[in-house]
């Protein structure tokens, strides 16, 4: 019988500690280092050209009140978009989770598509559709005898509409999860005692899902506050600025108003931080009765012939959020000057020819795919370690780590990139202007996304499965390899795909961090929108969508094949 010694205790700790604290240290540096620079700029009231700052103060923040309109716009757009997104999300979640509408499976999958399409694509398409003068919808309106314009997409509500269409799928996922985790017996109980279906809906269903919906509302609202692409594309023509686009303009103009922009960024971040703090509180405290960790088979209501009306609602949403934008871009991409009604001689394939020959875009697309691959692969390892460290190990400071890891969620990516730009430009290792910087940026800003996804799967795995391996005498590395990772594989694959897509469609962080040798696709599309015709931009957006879709299909096929083999 060998006798356990103190020595062996030390070696055990080192393997786990090195991996865990290594990952934690990386995350802390990546997250906090840029934030430090951001805060420094926000409180710098000295000569903006001189760094480090010569004097600090709050003037930059008090100066923000010069922009009441921008603050008002931001709140208006975010509120309107949140309300609309929640309505879309709630209605679709109810229809697809709780009624016997035909084709539920298919629609449930289609609901994810707007998320993959990106709000930028939606904004470009809706710009073509809804500009007051040239918008296709308004052209048709006038051709039918209407006056002036039917819709104006270049307004706060227009921006909110497009944001809501695309964020609606996020709200849908969150609300559908709540509805599915609700014990149907609670509703049955109501109906048994004679309440009508409507009454049951109002008195039982609604109150039960309220915490979940409220959580979704706050989460979506925070996302809206930090969103950038839609307001940039649709707001600029009508000078409708929100905080993020204002920051972008302030940074880009000459001389730049770095300090004002930083103060705006820090304020936005503070508000989002509070919102997300509330969200956490609601999700953690308000688990109420609905979240038992058990997935119930949701009771599906037979809605009779109303199901065809509900089917119509589903089709309409998918049409407006997916089919119409794609069709619009396709239609615009084959015209010289995009108009609603076909004109002979206006057809051209030049846009595709030009796009394919644009070296920048070709390399940008390649870079984006490469970065997506790198971000997803490194991210899954790093975020897996972090998720384990935070939610599974009982190492001290895991609570603090959770806050650090979730921190980027509260910082709009554009603002974060703004901090990173400075943080890494003075960093002794020359990664500024390279793909490495973007890789670091992506991994940092997607920390919350990846850690949350992996943790979600990790928490579903019974802790005793790992403990049992430990009791069998397996070292930490051995049980991670033989038990934890194989059990996590489905979650890790999902996280990988999610990170891949998020990286390829990333805009806010990339737009400030791209270098001459590190162009990526989404900001290139925005640049194209600023600097070339909308037809060419539509073509680029289509090509991006197509390439990402193909990449996804290939990746899913590959992972299916790999996943089908028995794990040993």
């Amino acid at each position, binding site marked *: 019988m060998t006798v*356990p010694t103190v020595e062996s205790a030390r070696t055990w700790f080192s393997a786990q500690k090195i991996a865990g604290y290594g990952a934690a240290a990386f995350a802390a540096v990546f997250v906090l280092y840029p934030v430090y620079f951001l805060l420094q700029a926000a409180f710098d009231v000295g000569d903006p050209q001189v760094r480090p700052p010569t004097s600090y103060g709050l003037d930059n923040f008090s100066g923000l009140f010069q922009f009441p309109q921008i603050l008002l716009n931001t709140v208006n757009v975010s509120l309107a978009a949140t309300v609309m997104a929640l309505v879309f999300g709630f209605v679709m979640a109810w229809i697809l989770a709780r009624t016997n509408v035909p084709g539920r499976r298919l629609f449930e999958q289609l609901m994810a598509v707007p998320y993959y399409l990106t709000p930028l694509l939606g904004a470009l398409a809706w710009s073509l559709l809804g500009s007051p003068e040239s918008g296709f919808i308004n052209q048709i309106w006038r051709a039918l005898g209407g006056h002036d314009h039917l819709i104006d997409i270049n307004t706060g509500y227009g921006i909110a509409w497009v944001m809501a269409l695309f964020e609606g799928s996020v709200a849908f996922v969150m609300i559908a999860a709540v509805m599915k985790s609700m014990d149907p017996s609670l509703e049955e109980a109501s109906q048994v005692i004679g309440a009508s279906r409507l009454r049951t809906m109002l008195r039982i269903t609604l109150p039960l899902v309220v915490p979940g919906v409220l959580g979704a509302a706050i989460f979506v609202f925070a996302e809206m506050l930090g969103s950038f692409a839609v307001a940039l594309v649709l707001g600029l023509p009508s000078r409708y600025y929100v905080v993020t686009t204002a920051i972008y303009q302030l940074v880009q103009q000459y001389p730049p108003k770095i300090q004002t922009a930083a103060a705006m960024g820090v304020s936005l971040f503070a508000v989002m931080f509070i919102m997300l703090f509330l969200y956490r509180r609601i999700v953690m405290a308000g688990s109420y009765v609905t979240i038992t960790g058990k997935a119930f088979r949701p009771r599906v209501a037979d809605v009779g012939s109303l199901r065809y009306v509900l089917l119509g609602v589903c089709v309409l949403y998918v049409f407006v959020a997916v089919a119409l934008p794609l069709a619009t871009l396709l239609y615009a991409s084959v015209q010289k000057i995009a108009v609603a009604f076909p004109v002979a001689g206006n057809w051209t394939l030049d846009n595709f020819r030009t796009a394919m020959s644009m070296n920048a875009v070709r390399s940008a697309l390649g870079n984006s795919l490469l970065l997506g691959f790198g971000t997803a692969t490194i991210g899954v390892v790093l975020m897996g370690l972090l998720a384990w460290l935070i939610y599974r190990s009982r190492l001290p400071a895991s609570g603090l780590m959770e806050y650090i890891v979730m921190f980027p969620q509260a910082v709009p990516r554009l603002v974060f990139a703004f901090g990173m730009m400075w943080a890494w430009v003075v960093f002794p290792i020359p990664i500024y202007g390279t793909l490495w910087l973007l890789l670091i940026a992506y991994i940092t800003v997607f920390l919350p996304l990846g850690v949350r996804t992996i943790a979600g799967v990790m928490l579903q795995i019974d802790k005793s499965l790992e403990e049992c391996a430990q009791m069998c005498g397996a070292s930490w590395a051995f049980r991670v390899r033989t038990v934890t990772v194989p059990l996590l594989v489905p979650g890790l694959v999902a996280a990988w795909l999610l990170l891949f897509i998020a990286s390829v469609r990333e805009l806010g962080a990339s737009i400030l961090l791209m270098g001459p040798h590190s162009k990526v696709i989404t900001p290139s599309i925005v640049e194209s929108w600023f600097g070339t015709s909308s037809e060419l931009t539509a073509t680029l957006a289509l090509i991006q969508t197509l390439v990402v879709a193909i990449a996804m299909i290939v990746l899913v096929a590959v992972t299916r094949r790999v996943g089908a083999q028995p794990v040993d």
Partner: protein
Amino acid sequence: MQVSHPAGPVSAAPTPHIEVHGLELYYGSVPAVRGVSFNVLPGEQLTLLGPSGCGKSTTLRAIAGLEKPTSGEIRIDGVPVYSSTHQINVPAEKRRLSMVFQSYAIWPHMTVFDNVAYGLRVRRASAPEVIDKVGHALSLVQMSEFAGRRASQLSGGQQQRVALARAFVFSPSVLLFDEPLSNLDAKLRADMRIELRDLQHRLGITSVYVTHDLEEALAMSDRIAVMRDGLIEQTGTPDEIYRLPRSAFVADFVGSANLIRGRLRADLAVNDLIALETSAGHVVYCMAYGRPVRAELVVSVRTVHLTISSDRPAATQNVWSARIGKTVFQGDFTQVHVDWGDQHLIARGAAMEPIAVGQEVYITVDPKRVVLLDA
């Protein structure tokens, strides 16, 4: 208090296999275990029994190394695996223990064979050895024909057997059981109880067993430690625990009991019997069993030891008249509630004469069965 045991060492005064001394475990400022000490002898099966939240599982997990205690000392084979004073905390995988989990913890991505072989492979056993030992372990738990199955295709009872085989296949020095039967249905639980006890005897392995189920504890243990609020209330053989509960808590938790309070009537003491008088004026004779005799006393009477009769019994002590409150038929026995002065007593019996509610009856109990409680 040593119990003779087939696999136990024959020599006198063996050193304890597991020693737990002054174990405390706090979650933040919330105490889970508040100073627990006990020994487990080689080959002995000790059960930690108590309601949920009493700290029994936490104590077990602390022995396993899955929870880090706040203070105290745990020794296995005389070697400290945890000691707050010496800053020792040997990780779980180095303690040479094994454990069966409440949730079975069968790895769904492996076959039954691979699940059982895991501990052997960790120890780098040769392939023939793995096949041999796993085969033997599976036959012991009667699961040989399932070796190639995926764990997810097994029923609860089958998973439990696999978990068991996996736990002992690599000959650990100690087996820990964390409520291993609580997820099984009642019938299967009773069967598995016997199987487990047999297996434990056959392997002669030291084990610590955690349960909240009294019958399980009584049936399977060499010794039982009853826990409450992070402390051990009483330790003893199943018989001692049942017959001579030390506290009201043990008396009530280990089978149902009537508690009777009263004032000491030293003047009425007869031989080794002590007398007390209840507030209603009933005189109750009881045995002290070496426990301190105070002015205010509490005694325990098991419900099965109360006898009800319509005619006055011959006994002279502990015979009282009472009135039937209600009766509840419970299959194996009938539960009778009687009004006895200003309190209710409950009596359980298999063959009760038919009695009507409101009937005046006599109740009686052997004074030896009336146990003086320690505080």
